[in-house]
């Protein structure tokens, strides 16, 4: 078989009601218990606000929440795009030669060990409180899974296909474009999903370290004044954002590599 698609076992992509139901039930139960606990125990709402209080507060502050979501989303989108471009670029360079691989790979791995806590303030000192340092930090901390995903993907190319192309007269770059890159696409989407969750976390943290607006700085300011209800509301928005972006990668995958999921559906061979 010439099926070169990668072998990660993941649940089928069409997530029907059956797949979602358990998660929803668990979540609902937790929220109900939380609500009961906060109302019965008489705990100070500044320590632990009830879900209903969080929602009311969040709704009241919706325009502030929204105003702070926009910059975070912007940073994430831009930083993440930069990460994809850089990650892809590194993967090409590394794939091109063993020498470059040996020269670059240790540096890339090293870059992933930089502690965010230490580096975020530095980058903000260098580039100011604007959007630039956030984009750089996000790119720095999320390009790596993309590079690794591409490299794994290239290596999964069917040697028969590569040999066939060579006998047809294709040279290196041509073989790369015709066989290696398409083979790597499903891997890329896996890397993308890992990177996108990183991106949001880094965005929030980078804002924490210094920003004029964004969910991170918003959370920090509200924590300082004990508005825990709004802190929770902001956390919910962050989570929703992550889920939406995550789902978007599946949509993009479906559009860009339509042959992939369907060719792996269980009733096919």
């Amino acid at each position, binding site marked *: 078989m*010439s099926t070169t698609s990668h072998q990660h076992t993941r649940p089928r992509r069409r997530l029907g009601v059956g797949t979602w139901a358990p998660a929803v039930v668990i979540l609902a139960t937790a929220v109900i218990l939380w609500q009961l606990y906060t109302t019965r125990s008489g705990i100070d709402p500044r320590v632990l606000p009830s879900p209903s209080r969080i929602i009311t507060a969040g709704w009241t502050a919706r325009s502030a929440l929204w105003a702070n979501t926009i910059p975070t989303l912007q940073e994430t989108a831009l930083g993440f795009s930069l990460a994809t471009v850089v990650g892809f670029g590194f993967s090409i360079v590394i794939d091109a030669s063993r020498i470059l691989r040996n020269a670059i790979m240790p540096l890339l791995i090293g870059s992933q060990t930089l502690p965010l806590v230490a580096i975020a303030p530095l980058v903000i000192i260098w580039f100011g409180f604007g959007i630039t340092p956030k984009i750089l930090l996000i790119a720095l901390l999320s390009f790596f899974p993309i590079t690794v995903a591409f490299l794994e993907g290239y290596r999964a190319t069917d040697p*028969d296909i590569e040999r066939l192309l*060579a006998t047809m007269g*294709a040279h290196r770059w041509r073989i790369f474009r015709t066989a290696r890159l398409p083979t790597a696409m499903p891997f890329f989407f896996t890397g993308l999903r890992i990177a996108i969750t990183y991106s949001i976390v880094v965005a929030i943290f980078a804002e924490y370290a210094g920003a004029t607006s964004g969910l991170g700085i918003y959370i920090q300011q509200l924590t300082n004044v004990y508005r825990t209800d709004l802190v929770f509301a902001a956390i919910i928005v962050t989570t929703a954002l992550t889920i939406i972006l995550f789902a978007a990668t599946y949509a993009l995958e479906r559009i860009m590599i339509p*042959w992939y999921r369907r060719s792996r559906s269980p009733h*096919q061979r």
Partner: protein
Amino acid sequence: MTDVDGSVSAPKLCVAALTHSYDSLSVLEEVSLTLHQGELVALVGPSGCGKSTMFSILTGTTTPSSGHIELDGAPIARHTAAFAYMPQSDALLPWRRVIDNVTLGLEMQGVRRREARARVMPLLATFGLDGFARAYPFQLSGGMRQRAALLRTVVQERSIMLLDEPFGALDALSRIEMQTWLEDLWNRHSWSTILITHDIREAVFLADRIYVLSPRPARVTAEVRVPLPRPRSLQTMSHPDFVGIEAQLRDALASSGAL
């Protein structure tokens, strides 16, 4: 050697004393064979004897330890454009639709997309792929995949075709169907072809000449001509001559230790 039309001619392809080993594993030992214009030659041998290696040497993927290959009387260049190769796996690109898979060779030759498609379209029906131009490989049956791979090979219009077990992955029934279909098609076009198979009947049914290879390292242990008239049909398979040649091949394989 007499050509198909009865005249004596120099061989198109001449392989002389080809020897190859992968590191310490000796795979081919002094293999010599010829292929004439319009001829279909089959290589029969046990699994793992070195048949596919033979093709990867011809196509320039593997450099032989020693030996000569001549094409039209001149030593062959590495990565020559003489061969159209069909690998043992069909090697269809899963992300390309059938139409873009079968035009792959033309695309690599630099033929414009529109022209490549125009050349291939009329052949889709002959290859039983009518209405499947826009399908992805995973939507095809095993036989259709093989025919698509074959079409991709044929449209390259190279002077020699190398088919590595084109029907190896098929069940017995579709295999026979494909064999009769291929015999008919080749009969009409007289494409110079080397066909690898380990199916004796397939070799006798399709070939003009058959080389029997020994287990690894492969040596040529017998060369058998198949003078059965063409076109051949299912009836040919029960013809006494057919059965005789089949027995002869089985004996050759047995005495070389393959059976």
